[in-house]
């Protein structure tokens, strides 16, 4: 931690109630950068800090194992499902045009359900509402394949800042991000805002941006969702994870997307 960041951290801790009140007022307009937040020009993708071999895997679609999920997702896109006998392609036609940029602006607020939905939630919403099919369980291979296929269409695009109606959700996500939890009494921010670039045991601490999800994690030997990654971190903090698909995870996802606004999408990425 640099001297400046350490001072920020102490200030931050000392004046938390006052700070929180000030933020509540300011956030009505637009969530501002706070002390402890990573300056926009210092943000880096996990890609920038990973090894040469892992980068090579991500750079080459035929070496990136997530491509296997993309092939499944492409097949599922035009497969008829549910009582309505409709495929995704029947409404959305070609994903390359209709899904372009969608993953870069999710989670988004669904006015019909009056709650924010991430991509997985949106796909399941389509299944129940339009296809009249059963929602897919989280981390199900088909759901990951479809999510990866949708997210792939936004590769290279900049993450869009969430619209106004998502602000309360983003704020809720930030509150969870900065809350100390678990037996180790850690918050997400203590690692990913205050100590990124340093080491936790042998591993580099990344800034924790969600720009490559769903992604192939070598440790998982599989594609996994952002929620799986978040649960992974919570287990590491010895905190009790939320149920997959819960509003807390969606809020965290929304905050992380706000935090990574403007960064390039890499989905489906490869990470160690």
């Amino acid at each position, binding site marked *: 931690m640099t001297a400046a960041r350490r001072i920020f951290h102490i200030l931050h801790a000392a004046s938390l109630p006052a700070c929180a009140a000030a933020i509540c007022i300011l956030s009505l307009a637009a969530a501002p950068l706070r002390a402890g937040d990573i300056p926009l020009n210092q943000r880096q993708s996990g890609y920038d800090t990973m090894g040469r071999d892992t980068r090579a895997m991500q750079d*080459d679609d*035929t*070496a990136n*194992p997530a*491509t*296997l999920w993309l*092939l*499944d997702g492409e097949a599922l896109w035009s497969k008829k499902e549910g009582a309505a006998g409709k495929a995704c392609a029947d409404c959305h036609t070609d994903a390359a045009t209709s899904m372009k940029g969608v993953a870069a602006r999710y989670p988004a607020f669904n006015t019909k359900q009056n709650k924010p939905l991430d991509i997985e939630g949106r796909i399941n919403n389509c299944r129940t509402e339009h296809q009249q099919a059963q929602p897919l369980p989280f981390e199900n291979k088909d759901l990951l394949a479809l999510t990866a296929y949708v997210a792939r269409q936004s590769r290279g695009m900049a993450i869009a800042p969430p619209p106004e109606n998502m602000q309360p959700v983003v704020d809720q996500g930030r509150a969870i991000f900065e809350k100390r939890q678990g037996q180790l009494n850690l918050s997400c921010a203590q690692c990913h805002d205050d100590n990124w670039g340093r080491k936790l045991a042998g591993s580099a601490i990344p800034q924790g941006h969600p720009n490559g999800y769903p992604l192939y994690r*070598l440790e998982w030997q599989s594609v996994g969702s952002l929620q799986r990654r978040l649960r992974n971190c919570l287990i590491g903090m010895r905190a009790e994870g939320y149920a997959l698909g819960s509003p807390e995870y969606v809020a965290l996802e929304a905050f992380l997307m706000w935090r990574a606004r403007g960064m390039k999408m890499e989905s489906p990425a490869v990470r160690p």
Partner: protein
Amino acid sequence: MARVLINVPATAKRGSVIQIKTLISHVMEPGFRPGPDGKIIPRDIITLMTCKYNGEEVFRADMFPAVAANPFVTFHTIATESGKLEFAWTGDNGFTETASANITVE
């Protein structure tokens, strides 16, 4: 059915060394891990991968439980003549998968 990705250069100079990359979806369950019910999950791995170049075997690999899921295998061979590269994988529970790629040698 397993998904397969093959990366072979479409054209190559005669006598040059070419790189071939293969990726196949497979769980590669090692057979040592207990499942949620405490029972050992039976072994389910690919045991053999071969590559034939115009009918002649140019590469063969035995695989074992320590190989990761979705095996990514790259190897090199010499581009001798135009033709077909045929890949075959076999494994536990009667697993078989094949794929092929064409190459033009100038």
